[in-house]
């Protein structure tokens, strides 16, 4: 029950947290002037009409950065418990963790050698 009390606090906090920024926005909504016109609410560009829709195509490099990040982020699923328990482990604990990180670093170096890390 004690553990869940902590999370009840986080839960109430999480409900309240968006309310704080919402309050001024709502107050602004009450006070602000309303003089809309077509030009104001059109898409902002350098003064010319927007050509085409927003979905310009993007370079694949964004995806590759996202991908490498994903792999390192997922690695944290195991590295955090490993780090927490580290002081109680024997030397074998270090070896296992080292191998784990080392294998992933290999992938990073592969990407490096293939120039996949360059912003082209």
């Amino acid at each position: 029950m004690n553990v869940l009390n902590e999370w009840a606090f986080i839960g109430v906090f999480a409900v309240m947290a968006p309310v704080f920024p919402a309050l001024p926005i709502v107050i602004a909504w009450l006070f602000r002037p309303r003089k809309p016109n077509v030009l104001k609410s059109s898409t902002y560009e350098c003064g010319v009409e927007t050509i085409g829709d927003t979905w310009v195509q993007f370079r694949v490099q964004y995806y590759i950065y996202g991908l490498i990040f994903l792999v390192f982020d997922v690695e944290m699923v195991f590295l955090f418990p490993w780090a927490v328990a580290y002081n109680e482990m024997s030397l074998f604990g270090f070896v296992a963790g080292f191998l784990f990180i080392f294998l992933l670093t290999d992938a990073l170096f592969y990407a490096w050698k293939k120039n996949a890390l360059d912003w082209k």
Partner: protein
Amino acid sequence: MAPLWMYLAVAAALFSLGVFGVLARRNAVAILMSVELMLNAVNINLVAFWRYSETSTDLLLNGYAFTAFVLIVAAAEAAVGLAIIITVYRNRRSVIPEEAVALKG
């Protein structure tokens, strides 16, 4: 504490939603997202059974650790799956799996 069967019922519903998405959606990215739903339904089950089962201390972590491994597999699947979708799209201008039957570019 909510009883175990409630978690299982929610997981079953989520899994079926995922199955429906995989079978019915045309878009490959949407299919991939549905697969993520299915994997998460499995994760709910794993954690729920882990929490509610009284096993010996040796096996205490099985469900917990398995969930972590499922997370890793889900991430790897998403990474490779999306990469394949992007490549197929680049070569054939299509994200509909039925139109990419012949994998020979």
